[in-house]
């Protein structure tokens, strides 16, 4: 059980029958996008009717680096004025 090195890696995103958005479910190897779709159907959907599958070659995905976590995500947490929590919402507006 080994995958030939020339078979690229694909990331698989699936929207379930009643799902609102595609979620990443895993990855697999396939020769091309068509084969990746077919494999994804067999490996990840178990023949569920009415699902939508996206496959993306892993090489196409740019991920944020773990080391960037601070600069990328922290500033907002320490600046309460960036969070719109100081407004009184009139009752007739209801929940927002």
């Amino acid at each position, binding site marked *: *059980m*080994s*995958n030939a090195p020339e*078979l690229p890696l694909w990331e698989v995103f699936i929207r379930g029958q009643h799902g609102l958005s595609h979620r990443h479910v895993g990855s*697999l*190897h*396939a*020769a091309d996008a*068509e*084969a990746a779709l*077919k*494999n994804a159907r*067999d*490996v990840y959907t178990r*023949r569920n009717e009415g699902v939508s599958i996206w496959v993306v070659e892993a090489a196409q995905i740019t991920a944020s680096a773990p080391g960037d976590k601070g600069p990328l995500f922290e500033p907002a947490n320490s600046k309460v004025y960036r969070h719109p929590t100081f407004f009184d919402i009139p009752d007739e507006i209801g929940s927002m």
Partner: protein
Amino acid sequence: MSDGLFQFLLRMGDNTLVLGHRISEWCGQAPGLEEDIALANTALDLIGQTQMWLGYAAEVEGAGRTADDLAFLRDVWDFRNLLMLERPNLDFGHTITRQFFFDAFHVLLLTRLQASSDARVAEIAAKSVKEAAYHLERSADLVIALGDGTDESHQRMQSAVDLLWPFAGEMFAADDVDNAMAAAGIAPDPASLRAEWQRKVDQVMADATLTLPESQFAHQGGKTGRQHTEHLGHMLAQMQWLQRAYPGATW
């Protein structure tokens, strides 16, 4: 007529049973995780179809047998599957080529059976044809990928085509059972499926850079049970061992 229908249903169910068992032998052995799961899925589809065909066959026979009895308590000479389907897997190329030859036939047959004068046959065909269409898509793609792949994959596929070709003709050779089914509107004359099957096969072979042998010779004897290959007995010995050793065992 009811014996003809019984024979026809055995042919349908034995095809899916024998091929399903053969493919299941790949479980954990296939050349890649994705192929392993896809082959297991295909095998399960075929076993599901077997339950429907043999279940109906048992009802038509009316001798108190069940689909399980037909699967596990008949011996070689009672099986009615095409010879091609009992052939050993040999390698992935042979397995995929056998699958493609059968899938292309199976889709055509099931499509036509949806219009069967027998409501149950039409029902089973309608459920099965969706699965078969998917099987065909997969096997055709793989034949092309492997035939038009590396030198080694091409050569393995060509040898599989050469070896399996003489077993393809049996699918279209009509006999008394086929004629009776066609006359009753239950099933199409298999010979009438041949031209369309050939078109599909020619197209895939061309894309796969593979060549079909010239010979029109066709091995026969599977559909009638008159002469199976030496492979079926070995397969049944494995498949039926538990029921033979512990008759009536359930779990």
